[in-house]
């Protein structure tokens, strides 16, 4: 509902109305102008301009840029489509489609499709997961799936991301984080991690850009979990965050001391472990809540990353809510450089181009 996915690629944003309907779902490309262009007061220069859009069948559940021109879109009908953005005449066209990549039981039944809930790309490979518990590995320009793991999970897979070039991470609705090695032929995960306590469904997952053993997941209860996948089967930290489902979690790609989460409760939080409290001037805490939190960690290790550190004097985290008047759910966010984009259920997208100002 509303705006369900945003994905940032350099100058353009792709936004979609993730509405459930036979009628009017669209993928839209917007231009937010030069990322480096700042006005006199540091204010953003004008509103995003709609460049082009195209009808989409079914809700858009997830999407990602495959390269500068192509976007992979996951649909609630179970289809996975690659759209190409033609920059010369500003149009979008459907380039390739895998019909019913995800389906329940009877693929040929009219209602047989199952929602494809997550997609991740590493050109030319595309991995998708869905409500049917299936994992597909596609290659752009190849008609058939390279590999399909049927019944990989007995519950719904909510999100997928790459751990390494041949390994992926998935999260499901019974609170499990699984590692799959795509080189191996067996249809079993190589490792399973689960939350302590109640098996709260996990909705999103992201891996630290530089330190590949650090993984963050977000749950249905709004809790942020940090995992060290080299050791143990339980999370390293559990951080009480949102009051409702956490839909997306992202490490900042070039500044990974910063983490962003968005939620059904209408808030978008910026988690900052970059400096200790004494260094950071307090007037930079703008709006929203600002709390500090210690991470729990009983595992003895000498890791550099602040996400896993257990030194009480050092690991103070600044958490800021970036939305002053929250109303409806923030469904999706993405970040690139100083630019943050997010979409809400009020059918609006917001662009913040001075994240670290």
């Amino acid at each position, binding site marked *: 509902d509303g705006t369900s996915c945003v994905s940032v690629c350099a100058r353009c944003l792709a936004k979609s109305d993730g*509405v459930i309907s036979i009628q009017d779902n669209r993928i839209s490309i917007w231009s937010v102008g030069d990322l480096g262009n700042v006005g006199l007061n540091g204010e953003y220069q004008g509103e995003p301009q709609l460049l082009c859009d195209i009808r989409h069948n079914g809700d858009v559940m997830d999407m990602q840029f495959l390269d500068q021109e192509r976007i992979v879109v996951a649909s609630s009908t179970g289809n996975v489509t690659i759209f190409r953005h033609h920059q010369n005449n500003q149009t979008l066209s459907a380039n390739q489609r895998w019909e019913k990549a995800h389906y*329940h039981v009877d693929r040929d039944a009219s209602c047989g499709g199952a929602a494809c809930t997550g997609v991740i790309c590493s050109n030319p490979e595309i991995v998708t997961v869905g409500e049917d518990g299936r994992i597909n590995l596609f290659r752009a320009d190849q008609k058939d799936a390279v590999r399909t793991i049927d019944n990989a999970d*007995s519950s*719904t897979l909510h999100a997928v991301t790459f751990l390494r070039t041949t390994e992926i991470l998935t999260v499901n609705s*019974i609170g499990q984080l699984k590692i799959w090695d795509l080189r191996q032929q067996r249809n079993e995960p190589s490792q399973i991690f689960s939350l302590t306590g*109640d098996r709260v469904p996990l909705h999103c997952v992201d891996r630290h850009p530089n330190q590949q053993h650090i993984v963050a997941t977000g749950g249905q209860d709004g809790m942020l979990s940090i995992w060290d996948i080299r050791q143990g089967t339980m999370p390293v930290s559990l951080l009480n965050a949102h009051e409702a489902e956490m839909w997306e979690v992202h490490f900042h790609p070039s500044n990974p001391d910063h983490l962003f989460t968005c939620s059904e409760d209408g808030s978008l939080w910026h988690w900052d472990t970059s400096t200790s409290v004494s260094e950071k001037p307090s007037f930079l805490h703008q709006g929203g809540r600002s709390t500090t939190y210690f991470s729990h960690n009983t595992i003895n290790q000498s890791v550099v990353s602040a996400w896993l550190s257990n030194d009480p004097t050092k690991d103070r985290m600044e958490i800021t809510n970036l939305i002053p008047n929250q109303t409806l759910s923030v469904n999706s966010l993405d970040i690139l450089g100083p630019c943050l984009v997010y979409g809400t259920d009020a059918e609006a997208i917001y662009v913040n181009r001075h994240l670290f100002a």
Partner: protein
Amino acid sequence: RARPDPRSSCVFVVRKDQDIYIQTLRKLFNESHGIFIGLQRSEEEFAGKSRKTQLVQVSKNYRSVIRACMEDMHQAAVSARDPALHSQYSTQVSILSAMELIWNLCEILFVEAAVAGPLLLRLLDWVRLHVCDVDNMVREVLSSENPSKHELFWNVVDVFVLQGRMDEARHLLSKEASANPTSVNMCRILDDLMKKMPVPSLGNTQTLTEMELKWQHWHEECQRYLQDGTFASNSHMESICKILLGDENAILEKKELMTTWYHFLVTRLLYSHPTVKPMELRFYAQSSMDLFLGGESSPEPLDTILMAAFEFELHQVIKECSIALSNWWFVAHLTDLLDHCKLLQSHNLYFGSNMREFLLLEYASGLFSHYSLWQLGVDYFDHCPEYGRVYLELHIERIPLNTEQKALKVLRICEQRQMHEQVRSICKIMAMKALRNNRLGSALSWSIRAKDAAFATLISDRFLKDYCEKGCFSDLDLIDNLGPSMLLSDRLTFLGKYREFHRLYGEKRFSEAAKLLLMLMTAHIAPCSFWMTLLTDALPLLEQKEVIFSAEQTYELMRCLEDLTAGKSDKQKFQDDDVETMKVEMLRLALARNLARVIVKEGTLEGS
């Protein structure tokens, strides 16, 4: 609204509200939702004047949203290639324009409640903003090389005068003066009159009485010039002078330049009664409309609505708007705003709720038929104290849930409002769907969310059934990782423990496995129907070379077996097929043998 006559047999063609599906109107709904919520949340922190300023700002926000929507709609109309679509968009533009016109008037009269003096100024602004049929003509004349020679020159001057735009009128007059030396004197005098015309001030620089006095003097001066025949040689300027004097006939002659009766009304007031009080408007309004229409045409719906506003008949305004407009957006939001201004008496409608709530309920219900705008509807229901909750409960269960994500959003809304019935119902629906698609893990996840023990039992039975049929467990990743959710239902606990038994057996930890197996039966965790299977599972343990079950345990097992067989009636025993009886026989034999071995073993003294 007519109610169907139960005695008549009719077929009613029902159609969904089309408006909510128009793409450009969605922006209107979404943004006005934000303004609405902001208004509800802004409790009366301020009182008196600052509250009024706040409410006026809210009103202006609504209007700017309407205007933005109008712009988009206009763009869409211009770029639409399909003539039907073009006409639909154009109609929408006029409707939106009318809505803004009405809203603006209501803002002046009710929200701001402009008093005598500023009232006129506001009305002038209102007219200038909305009567734009003459804009093209004005542009044409102003941009021509020699405006004073243009054939429509005097029309434009008249327009400015009629709208009280004195500076612009004077500017054009100066062009006439420089182009036409013979009229320089007349132009100078007229210019002077226009410059000196007293207007009400917005601030407190003068009282009404002062203003009236000045105006009286000015009026007399104009009168003298007219009677002296100063403008006799130029009919245009003479007619302008007459207009300045508020001569109704002179003003009426310029009907085409005013295009509407309410323009006529405001011009009349400007030149005959600039300090008009709000309550006096009704008389002028009625007579203006009569004079302007002159019996030739009858009032349109828009005219009736505006008239009701000038008469300060709020309920009439709302009623007429409800009839004239095709969806509830306008009346719902306007009424809510007026309610916040404390202008609506809370006289109850016949079924008990008040007008504001009734309209909001209607509007929100309309939103629920839309595939994505229903989320806005939730917030509107939240702010209807009487029936909002009931409406929400009924509507929320009927939202189609075709993805899990949508179901989760609906669930979250229900949980936040303690709508437990709906939570249970939705979780059950989703769990059933998952079960039918063989997604047992998903089904379990939904049961856990609803804390639905009965359903968890159902799922466990499914697993156990699969096991009995296939001889192995499906979805081990689920069963092995149940965690505390195992305790949701006894059957689920049994499933988890039973799987644990198999695991222990697989790891050759036989005595632990044996203990667990026995415990499953003696602690009544296992359902009776499964005991036979459990006992059969005990067979390989009994047949091991090493004695596993102690004497105590063997007695327990025997007791279980006897309980099981004794429970069957003779008839059932008769119907048991050979396999069943053979199983029982084998068990009895194995148990007896084990007992023998274990008695000997336990009775034997360990060698030192």
